[in-house]
């Protein structure tokens, strides 16, 4: 690695809370690490293992799933299901040692622009420390 490794992170944000939170981070001119690419979905419950795993196995170095805080879901219950699906995925990657720290679930509300920045920057930092996703750089896969 000649120059500092810059990770490629995919972030699935729910339309109502987290995406709005990201907007607020922007409109209040908060610096946010550019390694994360935002993909907007209506609800975190739309994001299942298919989306997270594909992203991971097609080369992203980290995947963030963000939604409304528990109890705040615009669709009442979506994020509770999202959390269960994520918990399963997290466990699988743990057991198989597929670097579980590369996937993250966070709750970010529409008023938490600052929190959005903090979470993304921290995540990007952690991933940079981890280095590139071995799963994808590994010719065996």
């Amino acid at each position, binding site marked *: 690695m000649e120059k500092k490794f810059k990770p490629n992170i995919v972030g699935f944000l729910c339309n109502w809370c987290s995406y709005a939170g990201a907007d607020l981070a922007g409109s209040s001119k908060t610096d946010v690490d550019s390694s994360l690419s935002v993909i907007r979905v209506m609800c975190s419950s739309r994001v299942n293992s298919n989306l997270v795993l594909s992203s991971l*196995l097609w080369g992203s170095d980290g995947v963030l799933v963000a939604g409304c805080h528990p109890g705040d879901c615009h669709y009442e219950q979506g994020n509770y299901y999202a*959390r*269960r699906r994520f918990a*399963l995925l997290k*466990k*699988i990657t743990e057991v198989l*040692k597929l670097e579980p720290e590369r996937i993250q679930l*966070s709750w970010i509300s529409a008023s938490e622009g600052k929190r959005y920045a903090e979470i993304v920057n921290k995540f990007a930092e952690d991933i940079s420390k981890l280095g590139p996703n071995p*799963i994808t750089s590994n010719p*065996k896969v």
Partner: protein
Amino acid sequence: MNNNQKETKSNPKKGKTLPAEKSIKDAVLNIFKKALADNIVDAVLIPAKVPDTDAYSWILLQDESLFDIADPLPPVMNVQGGRALSSFSKNGELDLKIAALMRPCEVRAAVELLKLHQVDLDNVTLVSIDCPGAMPLRDYMNDPKKINDSFKKISEQWEISESLRPACQNCHRFSLMDGTGSDLHIGLLGENKKVTLISNSSTGRDVMDKLGFEPKDSLDKWKATKEKLVKEKSKKRESFLKEWQEKIKKTDGFFNELNKCINCHNCMNACPICYCQQCYFDSQTINFKPETYLQKSKEKGALRFPLNTLLFHVGRMSHMVLSCVACGACEDACPVSVPVGRLFSMVGDQTQKEFDYIPGLNREDALPLQDFKKDEFCEVETPNECEEKVTEEAK
């Protein structure tokens, strides 16, 4: 169903012991012959040896005379019983009373498929049987005679033999216990030259009454022997899990195991829980324009084909592993001997613990991903918000 559930948890006190002078097989078959003769059931779903071949298969038997090809405990698990049951009962109600004789893992699969609306059990009496395990399909096909003999020996002595399928060597749910949602169970352990019929649900009790089998014989001996064997096999399972955790302690540990995979998806086709019409990972949704792949191979230096092997396995895992009954059908079906069954049941073990769920145990338990609590899994949230408690109590 409600009392059914209670009973699967409680352990039955007494059973009905039946003589087996001629052979265990005979004694077992007699139960079903009687059930059919007395019109307690209209048909029996049971493994059978295809005449004039070495092949085994399932038959839905209505003609008594065919019982002689039936075999309650074949040396191999050619098709997972749950799958067999689903294949004819999934579309619409079954108005035929059926007794299905299956291995405990097959019964558990059937119960999971019930929750997934892939079987109809309303008219089905699930009968499980103490299972000595089964032999690897490939070994059997190579030398049926030899394998038959060694299986005979193994099943008589209940030996945890290296020549059994790995899934069976490590199986601690081979008999009636928490983890078997059957209505009736046939105990072979303990007494020799005897089989014991045990009711495990109101449906089961009902059938026993109709058969005129009053459960008054003690189960102590059966239980004692069973428990002993369970301990032994549980220990075996423990060490198997440890061993595999060792094997997969580095990131590439897992795909080293998968390297041989030729993406034939036999594992998925053999799996009783994989019930989809078409597997998501066979669908067009994950096929893209050539340039995408050229791009990728450029980035990585080389791109491996067939594509998405790892995605398929981990993805399939994320779809079914919470219902995995560790039957080993997948591994049996793998042409290149990927230890896929062991991998899946290892993951199954730990994920199911996470959700405090035992597949096939309780027909009333909701499937983990169809349910939620408001206040749970805070440990998977970042930042970890375990302190933040929702005031409403869990749903």
